[in-house]
């Protein structure tokens, strides 16, 4: 978000040189004057202003916005100011940015939703992203906007999808806050299904199961250690071992999670 005096969020101020900053502020100004301009300025923003990771380790923008996401968020913020008195049109323009966007533009729209005063009206975009198998879109869908607005069932399905497609659960906003026994049950069933197939279980399941370990008692995981099939015995052993590894490392990963939710 910017104000008319041209202040940008600190992370962007640090990442942009004066020339890029000027181009971004000009584009935001154009959108405030004529909101329809967002239709061509949002797609061209990465090329015109800046692109790349905002946090070096997060090259694909799985844990948070990329630099181009942050740039585009400023433009979406300007759109929100321009259409502050016309919420249906704001929702329509934002939805169209997503509909006609390539994967980078779609991710940027999802990341920018918290700056708009549109309540849960952008949930169809989040639902669309959760139907894809694109880890960047799934992760952005479970960012702050999705985690605030999705109902419990949809949110739990989203978290489970992260485990399936390989989105790290540390990328899910408010995981600790929204995690409940039903999600733990779903994750425990997933763990058992994997072990019974002789396959690995991602360590991230412990971020959900740690506070609800009793749900595992409903599944015969220890029996799997005695399975007549070697691959199932080995999978059960790896899974139960991973619990011990996780509990020694969990304090570190919890700190990482909190720092990313700011």
């Amino acid at each position, binding site marked *: 978000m910017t104000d008319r005096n041209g202040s940008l969020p600190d992370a962007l101020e640090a990442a942009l040189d004066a020339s890029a900053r000027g181009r971004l502020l000009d584009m935001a100004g154009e959108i405030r004057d004529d909101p329809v301009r967002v*239709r*061509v300025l949002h*797609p061209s923003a990465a*090329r015109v202003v800046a692109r790349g990771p905002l946090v070096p380790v997060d090259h694909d923008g799985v844990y948070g916005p990329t630099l181009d996401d942050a740039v585009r968020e400023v433009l979406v913020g300007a759109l929100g100011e321009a259409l502050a008195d016309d919420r249906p049109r704001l929702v329509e323009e934002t939805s169209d940015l997503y509909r*006609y966007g*390539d994967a980078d533009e779609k991710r940027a729209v999802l990341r920018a939703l918290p700056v708009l005063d549109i309540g849960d009206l952008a949930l169809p975009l989040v639902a669309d992203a959760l139907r894809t198998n*694109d*880890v960047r879109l799934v992760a952005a869908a479970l960012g702050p906007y999705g985690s605030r607005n999705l109902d419990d069932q949809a949110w739990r399905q989203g978290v489970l999808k992260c485990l399936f*497609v*390989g989105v790290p659960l540390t990328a899910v906003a408010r995981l600790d806050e929204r995690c409940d026994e039903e999600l733990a049950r779903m994750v425990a069933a997933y763990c058992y299904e994997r072990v019974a197939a002789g396959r690995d279980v991602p360590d991230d399941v412990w971020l959900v199961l740690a506070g609800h370990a009793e749900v595992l008692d409903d599944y015969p995981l220890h029996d799997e250690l005695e399975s007549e099939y070697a691959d199932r015995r080995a999978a059960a052993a790896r899974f139960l071992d991973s619990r011990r590894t996780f509990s020694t490392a969990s304090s570190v990963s919890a700190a990482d999670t909190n720092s990313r939710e700011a």
Partner: protein
Amino acid sequence: MRVFDPHIHMTSRTTGDYEAMYAAGVRAVVEPAFWLGQPRTSVGSFVDYFDGLLGWERFRAAQFGIVHHATIALNPKEANDPRCAGVLDVLPRYLAKDGVVAVGEVGFDSATPEEEKAFIRQLELAGEHDLPVLVHTPHRDKVAGTSRTLDLVETVGVPPERVLVDHLNETTVDMVGDSGCWMGFSIYPDTKMDEHRMVRILTERGLERMVVNSAADWGRSDPLKTVRTGEAMLASGFDADAVDRLLWSNPVEFFAQSGRLLLDGPGSAGPDRTATFEGNSVLRGERPTTAEA
């Protein structure tokens, strides 16, 4: 031999074609939006097609070490269907995107008033989006259609050096060359132009503002015709620098006017079969890594 094919419809080609192209030296392509054989009847199917050109097809090319760009337009044939006229209204969103290196293919098919209206509007859009233009010339009544094309370019005021007029032959090359526009030739197995006639034209007119392409699509065509043209040039006495100019430097020079060439983008580091696009790979589930998702 390094090859930039400035006009090829990879959407209609196989992974075997991509492999053969890479092996023969093709490292970059431009895929113009065009007709798919089966006429489309709604704006929505164009939008999905454009998304596919800029999304899935760019990804697919990169898996085989080939950098993929696109040109976006409402083609002349389908400009005649009033159900598709709304495509002109969504074009600005696509002409603003990365990797879109020209407006095209535009031009004439049957030289109708509807075609001319769409052509003029898209020449204007090229100016508004600071993009070059790729022009298709008609199969039927080609000389008249090409002449009308050059008139419209001049009337709308698009600088001729930003216009590539394609599918030329012996009867249309001179008027396009004299106009200052770029001259494009589609080298086909048995229509339009072949590599030996092409060498004759190059011998007569030189290499300036000349490009050749395979225009390979869903019809009988050959994605290696650019390479064959280079071989025919060498066999008739052109040197390797001349071949490189025709097959690489010239198309790069033309499309670089867009400011949006992605020559160091996805695919430029060679084949990569491990990546996925929206979770899908070209490998149909067989992944060369050990990671399980």
